[in-house]
């Protein structure tokens, strides 16, 4: 089983919303953020993430765990904001009462931002002077540990089926359902990376070999594949894979 975010290959979606210019030609121009609230939802998510109370995999899992009707109805940054709100509550950075108080205030027009002098910054708070340094460092997921990868380039492998997350029913995974139970070929080995299926649930980083695996379109979509020559490549962790035939 899977969740709504795992939409690769599904039917029913219409035309790509490709931006076009006045002459109806495809244009590359699009503002970075269409509305100010998009920019704010994005920026407060990054800034709150920098408090260190959760990792990237946890924040992804929170977006994925939005109720299906919300996941479908929310626009992109609404999903970000809803997941952030749930995280802030669960991690007790804010309380539900505080949230309700601020929601009423914004709806009544009585919302007040304190003056900077009245705000005491938390010691974890991400400061503007550190922004470029932190962005430049990023959040590396490679772990320098001594694991010998089981598979070699060119090996035929088959992916896990049904529920790749072996610890948690409905848990986070990065094996999309369209590529479950399919046979592919190891294209490359990309070092050992933090394993999201565990890291998203506070079960440790468990770094594991990460491979790029190539699947023929016909293996994924059968005889009706657009072209028998095309392929799809996915980055998959070793626990998702078994040697084929096994």
């Amino acid at each position, binding site marked *: 089983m899977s969740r709504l975010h795992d939409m690769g290959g599904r039917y029913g979606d219409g035309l790509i919303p490709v931006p076009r210019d006045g002459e109806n030609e495809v244009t590359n121009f699009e503002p970075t953020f269409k509305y100010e609230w998009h920019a704010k939802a994005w920026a407060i998510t990054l800034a709150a993430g920098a*408090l260190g109370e959760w990792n990237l995999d946890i924040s992804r899992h929170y977006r994925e765990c939005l109720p299906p009707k919300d996941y479908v109805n929310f626009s992109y940054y609404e999903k970000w904001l809803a997941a952030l709100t749930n995280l802030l509550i669960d991690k007790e950075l804010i309380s539900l009462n505080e949230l309700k108080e601020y929601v009423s205030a914004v709806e009544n027009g009585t919302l007040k*931002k304190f003056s900077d002098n009245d705000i005491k910054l938390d010691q974890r708070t991400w400061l*503007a002077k550190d922004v470029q340094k932190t962005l*430049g460092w*990023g959040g590396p997921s490679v772990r320098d540990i001594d694991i010998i990868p089981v598979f070699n380039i060119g090996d035929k492998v088959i992916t896990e089926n049904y529920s790749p997350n072996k610890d948690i029913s409905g848990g986070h995974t*990065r094996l999309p359902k369209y590529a479950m139970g399919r046979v592919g070929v190891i294209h490359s080995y990309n070092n050992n990376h933090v394993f999201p299926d565990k890291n998203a649930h506070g079960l440790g980083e468990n770094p594991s070999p990460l491979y790029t695996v190539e699947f023929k379109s016909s293996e994924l979509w059968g005889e009706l594949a657009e072209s028998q020559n*095309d392929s799809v490549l996915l*980055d998959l962790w070793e626990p998702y894979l078994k040697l084929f035939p096994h």
Partner: protein
Amino acid sequence: MSEKKNIAGGDNHSHDHAHSHLPSDPELRVKAVETLLLNKGLIDSKTLDELIDTYENRIGPKNGANVVAKAWVDPEYKKRLLIDATSAIRELSYQGRQGENMVVVENTPEIHNVIVCTLCSCYPWPVLGIPPTWYKSDEYRSRTVREPRKVLLEFGLPLDPKVQIKVWDSTAEIRYLVLPMRPEGTENMNESELAELVTRNSMIGTGLPKEIK
């Protein structure tokens, strides 16, 4: 509740879904959460400004275009880029968040590469900035792996049936950049002139570089 939730379960957090208490207008929703976090000192407004300014004005597809143009004029750089893209891109001082592990895939007359993230919206920020709306759309995420040729047609890019398409689904923390083919008739152009031809879509695989008039 004295102990923080440890997120042990797939669905065990916020059964009453705190987000359902938010106002219906998304603008007010953001305002409420932002102001609460600011007043509690958990975020700093100067940090928000710095972040937004960085990605609106400093980090974007121009970075990627410089990488591509350099690879077009400098065969040694291109070699380094295809072997270890992260280091080669760092030579131009582009690095960090959402570009920690870069891979560059080269278009040739036989192979056309396209990048997608079916599970969320993974995208190489240091070289392309924040993804455009279409890249994050359900339509692009769902269809590109199954019918890339129809998708590319919608971008005005009909592909010869003989050309093989490789779709790269960014399911982990590797971020991909397409190295498009250098347009014909550009032999006399220098690196900065060439960079002007490199469009964002050409580095995702949904477009080609601009042709010279």
